[in-house]
């Protein structure tokens, strides 16, 4: 999922860097005023957890391996704007410190994982939540990562290195992550359910208190 340098044409890389920058600065503005004293450490822990989880490559029989990306997870736990900033932090550190994902395509990688996966995942979560939070978290992880894979496929398929074979890149990225995304969805749902039960106070969505119906 982390695109290395050399894969995406420069104009595209610049375009997606600009979009990512615009979305993240919007996110930073929206988030101002929503962070309480306990949320700043939570942002750090969720981002660090996403980094740690991304290092764990699950070996899948048949020669594939995949890791949890966590964009939807961060969005559900932190809200979409903080979630985007948290995952963008992870993706930037991965590229700058560990060479995972290129520097010129950093904006494109941030767009796929920290913007698309986060906001699509959050939207799916909100839509499905009335039918059950566990299902919603699962669908968010599953469809969020698939959406991010599709935009990655779009960037690759519109680039010279991939011979502009857009249908091939979209099919391989989309179908591949639609299948692997089941794992993403399962981890998102299981971990979220555990956290929601253990610490309901850490949830971001301040749904109106049932007790305040006076």
């Amino acid at each position: 999922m982390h695109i290395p340098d050399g894969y995406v044409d420069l104009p595209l890389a610049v375009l997606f860097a600009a979009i990512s920058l615009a979305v993240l600065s919007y996110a930073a503005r929206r988030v101002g005023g929503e962070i309480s004293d306990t949320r700043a450490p939570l942002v750090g822990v969720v981002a660090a957890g996403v980094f740690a989880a991304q290092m764990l490559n699950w070996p899948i029989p048949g020669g594939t391996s995949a890791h949890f990306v966590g964009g939807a997870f961060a969005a559900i736990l932190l809200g979409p704007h903080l979630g985007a900033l948290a995952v963008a932090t992870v993706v930037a550190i991965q590229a700058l410190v560990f060479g995972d994902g290129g520097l010129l395509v950093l904006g494109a990688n941030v767009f796929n994982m920290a913007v698309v996966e986060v906001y699509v995942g959050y939207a799916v979560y909100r839509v499905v939540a009335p039918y059950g939070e566990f299902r919603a978290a699962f669908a968010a992880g599953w469809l969020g990562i698939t959406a991010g894979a599709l935009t990655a496929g779009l960037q690759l398929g519109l680039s010279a290195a991939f011979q502009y074979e857009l249908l091939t890149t979209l099919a391989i990225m989309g179908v591949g992550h639609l299948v692997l995304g089941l794992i993403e969805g399962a981890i998102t749902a299981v971990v979220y359910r555990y956290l929601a039960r253990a610490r309901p106070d850490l949830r971001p969505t301040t749904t109106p208190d049932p007790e305040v119906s006076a």
Partner: protein
Amino acid sequence: MADGAGSTVPDWLPKAVAVLVALALLAPVFGWASGQVGYAEPLENAAEATGATDDAEPVESAPFPDYGVPGLGSAPGTLVSAFVGIGLTLVVAFGIGRALGSDADADTDAVR
């Protein structure tokens, strides 16, 4: 919702840090296991299908290339990378949360 005075360290933080340490210790194990099956993501499959693989340029300037430490073995290198990466991410993201939240805290206190 008041956690008491000066509660900048939430009560769940030690447990969260313990989980992060556990994940870091697992990183070399997973690294070895996925090496056993051969590492390939859909991205790499797409690169192979279109002949793009050779166009990939590694980031030469990365201090811990490919989650390893130059001169150190694979498993210890992964372990060091895991701790460095998790710690760095924790600090940077916490700093971002703090930077964005500091003004707001004053505001909400004033409103109350």
